């Protein structure tokens, strides 16, 4: 088990009260050693832990979970990670706006914007969805931003078999057409 050092940071999607609680807890926890299974830290907010071998971010439990009554999406992007800047804890992405037709964009996003569980998934080529919308929870309306990586993806066996069959048929066709005379050899 690797002990890690705790740092504290509020997340952009924390509300004002939550940010205050996090800030209040910071002096108490900052610099403290924390083991991976340490459950004694019950900070409500976002705890950034940096370890000797890898950096990752965890979210300790927020206030008791309440049910989301409704969610209205206002903006949806699909993104793909193009590079990761570990020094600055940020990553570059290509974004495609799925809400309307417009050219792709490029952006740099702080890793702190991504739930800690997903940090190991931030690697070049990784695909994610970024959803911005209005959430109603306990009759409170707030705007949320949710960046979510596609986890544990696999093609079904049927898809793999069908793809192999089509690929082999296509390879045979390519082989056939390669035997035709070329424009310049005829």
């Amino acid at each position, binding site marked *: 088990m690797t002990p890690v050092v705790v740092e504290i940071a509020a997340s952009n999607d924390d509300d004002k009260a939550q940010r205050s609680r996090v800030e209040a807890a910071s002096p108490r926890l900052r610099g403290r050693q924390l083991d991976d299974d340490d459950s004694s830290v019950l900070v409500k907010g976002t705890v950034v832990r940096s370890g000797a071998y890898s950096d990752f971010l965890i979210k300790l439990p927020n206030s008791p979970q309440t049910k989301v009554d409704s969610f209205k999406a*206002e903006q949806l992007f699909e993104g793909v990670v*193009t590079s990761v800047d570990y020094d600055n804890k940020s990553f570059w992405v290509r974004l495609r706006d799925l809400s309307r037709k417009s050219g792709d964009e*490029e952006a*740099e996003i702080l890793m702190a*914007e991504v739930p800690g569980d997903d940090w190991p998934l931030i690697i070049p080529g990784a695909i994610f969805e970024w959803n911005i919308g209005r959430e109603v929870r306990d009759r409170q309306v707030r705007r949320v931003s949710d960046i979510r990586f596609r986890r544990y*993806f696999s093609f079904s066996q049927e898809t793999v078999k069908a793809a192999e069959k089509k690929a082999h048929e296509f390879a045979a066709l390519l082989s056939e*057409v390669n*035997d035709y005379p070329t424009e310049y050899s005829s």
Partner: protein
Amino acid sequence: MTTPLNIPPSHDQLEISLFGHGFGESIVAHLGNGNWIIVDSCVSAKDNIPKALGYLNQISVDSSTSVRLVVASHWHDDHVAGLSDTLEACTNAAFCCPVALGRTEFLELAELYSKAPTAIPPGPSEIYSALQIAARRSKKYKRSLLSYAKSDSMIWASQDRSAIVYALSPSDEMVHRSLNFMTRSYAIAKLGSKILDRLTPNDPNDVATALRLDINGRSILLGSDLESGGNSLVGWRAVLTSVVGPSAKSVVYKVAHHGAKSGHHDKVWSDLLHADPVAIITPFRWGAHRLPTADDRSKILGLTNNCYITSNPKVDPLPPPKRQSKVEAIIQLTTKSRRSLVGTIGHIRWRSPLNDLSNPGDVELFDGALRLAEVD
């Protein structure tokens, strides 16, 4: 004096037009006598049309009959956007791609990734679609309209052999590495992984096709993204030890890999190029990368006085579109920086008389293209 953009070259005039905006490049070449080729593809953000097709339309050249060859030099995103649409429109054209991309290893991978639930097309899709078009077309005409690029191979020639297109790469070792990469990627894709990733090819040195156009005793070198690193079996080092056929040194050079240090080899300039050649470059803006760097620019400017770039690598393209103010506020809070991936596509055009070898030709600049020396 600049010729109006929409005036086509005469039958006895060569043309190399290079288009690029920071993420994407395309080359349109007139090899004389109405024979056109297109190398790589990028798409105009304004109308979502492949830039090569848009330009040929502007100069009243019928793509469907005049384009004889469409080449995909490799399958990096910035070289293939709109490639299959381009080939579809050029109904008389053959298609050429690096040899590894016609192998079952690539076809399996491409077929599988075509099922990936993503909006951004997975890496191999453009090349795969182009292969399908070329196969269908070949079968229809009972004539192979498909060729594969590998080192020292002729991939197209005019009927009178006055214009020949040679591939200088990939070398055998590069092909071997490509196939290894595909086999590995396919095995991972079959097993499933912790993420859904967007497949992108490995090192350009393993895949990129540099071309030499030999036209009526004159040569033009198109460097693709070929790099100089690695051993003598790959990249420029492999090309330099095995150059096809006797030929004059090239008078025009599409500088490899956006002018980056990684694509530079002194011997390319001394052994393959005429003194003081016309050098043309597309910039590359991707994440924190900006190519060519100041050092790259200094090096190139020390090698030729005739260097041009399609757009200024230091100037960001257009800002992204504005959205609803509250949504925009969240986007701005979440991102450190943001910009459109594509902007105005700059255009460098070189034309020269086909039969006057002593004429160095004229360079014209459109849509923000500039002399490399003017990038500060």
